[in-house]
């Protein structure tokens, strides 16, 4: 991957890639692996970007797909190599990645959501419009609006009234 491509095409969107990768990983090591894999896949798939959507939308979609694929792969590997007890045990591990404690708590709550709900709320928090989220997730804007409300309620419950 040329440093030019990384600097001009990936780095401006690194923020959202980091945010998404953080939401799908429990450890720093996994996070770095996911981030690297996303950057690599963006670079490898760059010729497939046809300009039908914005470059940023395409990156979000790709990042989500890669994270979901990696998480599925990881689950399968765990099922092969570890007992159910060990999976649950590892799942409770906390990863305090940010200096802001509220943000850490929010992330822990987001990680408790389903994989698709995580994607929806991350895009919502990035101030993406329902239409764009729907385009990325592959559903209708109405469905997204309903989902976002439901997710926010769930997050409130998970954060135990620490938020409005």
């Amino acid at each position: 991957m040329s440093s030019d491509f990384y600097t001009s095409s990936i780095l401006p969107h690194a923020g959202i890639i980091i945010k998404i990768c953080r939401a799908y990983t429990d450890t720093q090591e996994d996070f770095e692996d996911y981030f690297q894999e996303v950057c690599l896949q963006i670079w490898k798939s760059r010729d497939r970007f046809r300009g039908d959507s914005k470059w940023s939308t395409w990156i979000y979609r790709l990042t989500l797909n890669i994270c979901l694929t990696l998480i599925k792969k990881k689950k399968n590997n765990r099922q092969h190599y570890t007992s159910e007890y060990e999976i649950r045990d590892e799942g409770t591990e906390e990863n305090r990645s940010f200096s802001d404690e509220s943000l850490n708590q929010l992330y822990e709550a987001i990680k408790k959501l389903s994989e698709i709900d995580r994607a929806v709320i991350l895009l919502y928090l990035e101030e993406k419009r329902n239409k764009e989220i729907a385009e990325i997730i592959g559903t209708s804007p109405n469905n997204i609006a309903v989902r976002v409300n439901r997710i926010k309620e769930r997050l409130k419950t998970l954060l135990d009234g620490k938020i409005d």
Partner: protein
Amino acid sequence: MEKSIENIWKTGFIDHNALVAPKIINLYNQKSIHVIDKIMRMGKVNLIYLVVLAAIFLLGGFIAGTPYLGLVWSLLIVAHILLALKHTNVLKNIDKSVNSYQYIKTFDEWITYFIADFMLFSRFFYPIFFLSFVIQARFTDAGRKILNYIITSNPDMSLFLGVPTFIVIIVFVVTAVLALCGGLLYKLDLNIVYGRVLKKLNEILTDMEELKH
């Protein structure tokens, strides 16, 4: 004061360190190690399978009353195992501490040499396998009966060492084809078992080469 999730999100990321991208280093370290480990694991399983097969051929030959055929097939498999072990020993000398590109490149060179050697070996393996089967068949009761039937039904037929010439020609042609195509047969067999993982190895190597430039 309680905050909304939108506020937590916005203010949380004001800290610049929160969004520092990790350095992209040794991009393919894990992948190359995984793919090579997988090939090696598959190779080990294959060798165990071959040892079992050699034993089955040997014992099966004695039980079925065709000890020479069992012995020849078993020896062919043993030769295959020894050749694979010879190559595997060479692999042990590859320095894993070098960078992942160099490691995977050396491994790729090794596997290319391995395949070329086995393609040559297969040009003898398949014909000997076939010929030993035919020779054994010639001396079984069923084989003798069939030959006698053919010869007595066509008394004018030309014979070569007591066998109808046309059968000798067919056996010769099949053996020649097997000798010529043994390498291709080996590649076909290789692709069925290792095709996907070897493709993955090639993809990684291509990506790494592109990344270097």
